[in-house]
């Protein structure tokens, strides 16, 4: 049998030291994705460093009134937390829309950000996949791709990022904190996922061996009036085929601030900044919402089977913003 080491880390510097310099070692959070990928042969680590006993399991209000979420906070704890539900309801909704009660009890915030695509070509080691096996090709482009990317993809990879939580985090300008043996660092979620280009196997901006320690949400008044909606091919316990997080702040009959992010349309949670730009300062009404969505989706490139995502995302944006706008009126 192959050597396979399990270590349980109890402090952060020890954890990063354990991983340092070993490209075959992995941090183990909830294991809901990593253990599954190990069974499938996609991940073949020789060492796991279990980080669940690190002191990273708390959610705290930051000095400026934001929220700092420890990396080992479970999805369940995150979604149940009163401050999350009060100040960032779309985040709680997004987390609750993902996976199942059992998996949310296991999965961690840090692990969620690092989960891999569920593209069926990626998870089947008998098939080519540029993300898993660089240079082997992307059979999805000419094969099955009805749930693949319409934004930010390339001919080398059209897989989508499966996270729901990440969509809300993207909308709320989350910042990821990490630790390495060289010291700590921060990266905005907007810069956390790398462009696909011709290197789909390179997924995040984290330095090698880095441990995610926290995700921080800056304070945002607009976030308290937010919502997440997910469309999937089963009413629950399924990955999205399209989802959106939206937050809306209306003042004097005009959009003062709006946040929009899309899920299941790109290799990362997709912040819809162009749509936000188009909408800001406009009256909150259907035509403007649709125009904003179209502005964002103008960059989309569809394949044979996934063109439906254009009307889907447009309709989702209009529906979500309309609901939020109507609630503002009341």
């Amino acid at each position, binding site marked *: 049998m192959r050597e*396979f*080491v399990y270590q349980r*880390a109890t402090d952060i510097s020890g954890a990063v030291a*354990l991983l340092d310099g070993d490209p075959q070692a992995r941090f183990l959070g909830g*294991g809901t994705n990593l253990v599954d990928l190990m069974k499938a042969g996609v991940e073949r680590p020789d060492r796991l460093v279990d980080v669940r006993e690190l002191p990273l399991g708390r959610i705290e209000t930051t000095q400026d009134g934001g929220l700092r979420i420890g990396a080992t906070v479970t999805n369940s704890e995150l979604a149940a937390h009163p401050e999350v539900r009060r100040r960032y309801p779309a985040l709680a909704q997004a987390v609750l829309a993902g996976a199942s*009660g059992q998996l949310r009890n*296991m999965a961690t915030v840090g692990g969620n950000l690092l989960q891999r695509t569920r593209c069926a070509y990626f998870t089947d080691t008998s098939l080519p996949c540029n993300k898993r096996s660089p240079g082997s090709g992307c059979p999805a482009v000419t094969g099955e791709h009805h749930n693949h990317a319409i934004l930010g993809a390339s001919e080398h990879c059209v897989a989508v990022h499966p996270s729901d939580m990440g969509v809300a985090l993207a909308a709320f300008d989350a910042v990821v904190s990490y630790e390495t043996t060289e010291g700590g660092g921060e990266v905005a979620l907007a810069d956390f996922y790398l462009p696909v280009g011709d290197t789909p196997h390179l997924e995040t901006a984290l330095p090698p061996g880095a441990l995610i320690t926290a995700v921080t949400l800056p304070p945002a008044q607009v976030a308290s009036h937010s919502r997440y909606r997910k469309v999937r091919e089963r009413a629950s316990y399924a990955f999205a085929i399209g989802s959106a997080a939206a937050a809306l702040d209306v003042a004097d009959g005009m959009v003062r601030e709006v946040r929009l992010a899309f899920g299941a349309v790109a290799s990362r949670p997709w912040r819809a900044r162009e749509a936000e730009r188009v909408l800001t300062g406009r009256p909150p009404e259907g035509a403007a919402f649709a125009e904003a969505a179209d502005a964002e989706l103008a960059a989309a490139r569809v394949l044979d089977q996934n063109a439906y995502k254009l009307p889907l995302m447009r309709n989702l944006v209009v529906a979500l913003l309309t609901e939020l706008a109507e609630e503002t009126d009341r």
Partner: protein
Amino acid sequence: MAPATPATASAITLTVNGEKHTLTVDHRTTLLDALRERLDLTGPKKGCDQGQCGACTVLVDGRRIVSCLELAVATEGRAVTTIEGVADGDALHPVQQAFLDLDGFQCGYCTPGQICSALAVLDEHAAGWPSAATPDVRPEAGPPPLTPEEIRERMSGNLCRCGAYVSIVQAVARAAEHRAGHPGHGAEATTESTTKESAA
């Protein structure tokens, strides 16, 4: 820092249903395999071994998890409850009794997972946790009532191919009423009807 364990296997102590078991496990061994193959606790079922069906659901420190994606070595020091530890001797737990009385299963293979999940659903709901079926997740909205929609959403991580879902939801509702101190015919009280005459 815990001492490094540079080996492929470790001796661990698992606490399952209140009993301590010492065994040596390969680090890759999942909790599910340790329970089934090493401790002969075959109540937790292997339906997919990928966290996609819920048949292996057990409670760890009172929280439900899928034991097929948890490493046995990682559960050392935690309290594991399997379906075998749910009844109080010969007396079935109210959740088990409700499943039995309302025919909340057919082939029975997903049943241990459904029941363990249901136990946790009742706890999670009692703790005020919202779900994806909760219309307003803000704490000001108060805890959601445990409607059939809430039960369905919360139980959705447990697939049942025989299609016993309708009676499972009734059983969970009945157990919830029992827990709330109103034992009785919860199923009747919470069963929605497909018929217009009784809906009217």
